[in-house]
């Protein structure tokens, strides 16, 4: 399986994402610069964290107007897995691939620590390797991770089971304790916590690796021809 990590000016978790795929998952991965990327040759698209364009205007807003977003939309329409973490999540929201928006954290503080998450939905291509209702630990690192949507959208997210991860101890004020959601077709996931920073037990936590393993399982089930 071949992954693309899209690098914007100001991305800073791109190398972590690359490492998670290459050394954690042990699959093929390229860092692709947003201007000259051709995403058609990849099986999955990963949008890393960071501060694309210095968070000018709103987090993710400027990146969402770049030409590569059209390619990301095509990959999403082709039902390829698209994962946006942290700033990547913000880019997905700003480009309309996921509903809602990000506000500054409730306490206005940049937060950088581990949070406990509950896996709400294991029926997605990103979460099948987790247990339903299971508790996992993932690092967060954001100043604008306060997910907001109006009540109608929130109801829709619940009805369609689009909420994949919730915080057990909501750190930032997110609506419905939301830490990660998928789109209606289930192949675009945005999340604020960083699974790519938790892929090695040697470094204390491998809870994030199962997310990438889920993507790989999904891909294998769909692409490997059974004899």
């Amino acid at each position, binding site marked *: 399986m071949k992954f693309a990590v899209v690098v914007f000016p100001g991305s800073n978790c791109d190398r972590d994402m690359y490492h998670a795929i290459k050394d954690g998952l042990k699959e093929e991965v390229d860092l692709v610069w947003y201007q000259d990327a051709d995403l058609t040759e990849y099986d999955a698209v990963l949008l890393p964290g960071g501060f694309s364009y210095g968070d000018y*205007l*709103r987090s993710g*807003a400027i990146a969402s*107007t770049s030409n590569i977003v059209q390619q990301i939309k095509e990959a999403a329409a082709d039902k390829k897995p698209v994962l946006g973490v942290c700033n990547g999540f913000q880019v997905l*929201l*700003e480009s309309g691939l996921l*509903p*809602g*928006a990000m*506000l*500054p*954290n*409730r*306490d*206005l503080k940049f937060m950088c620590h581990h949070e406990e998450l509950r896996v709400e939905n294991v029926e997605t291509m990103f979460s099948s390797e987790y247990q339903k209702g299971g508790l996992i630990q993932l690092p967060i690192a954001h100043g604008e991770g306060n997910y*907001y*949507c*109006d009540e109608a959208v929130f109801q829709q997210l619940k009805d369609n089971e689009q909420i994949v991860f919730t915080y057990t101890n909501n750190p930032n*004020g997110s609506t419905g304790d939301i830490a990660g959601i998928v789109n209606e077709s289930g192949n675009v996931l945005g999340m604020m916590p960083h699974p790519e920073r938790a892929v090695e037990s040697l470094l204390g936590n491998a809870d994030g690796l199962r997310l990438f393993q889920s993507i790989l399982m999904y891909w294998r089930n769909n692409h490997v021809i059974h004899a």
Partner: protein
Amino acid sequence: MRKVKVYITLKEGVLDPQGKAVKNSLNTLDYANVNEVRVGKYMEVMMEDTEELEAQVEEMCEKLLANPVIEDYSYQIEEVIA
């Protein structure tokens, strides 16, 4: 040439922690009658005039300058005399 003054404000009902912190500071400075502060953005956009200027400005606000999920916008168009 036109100067477009764009005002971006958080929608009513969307919490504004920054505004709340500013409000608390004003109260600390003894402005006891300050009840609420909402922080927004102001932009000046210099543009060549066209017949569809208003429609264009609204489109720009919807597409990029404001995020309609959380923000409202308003604008004024002024003539710039060279």
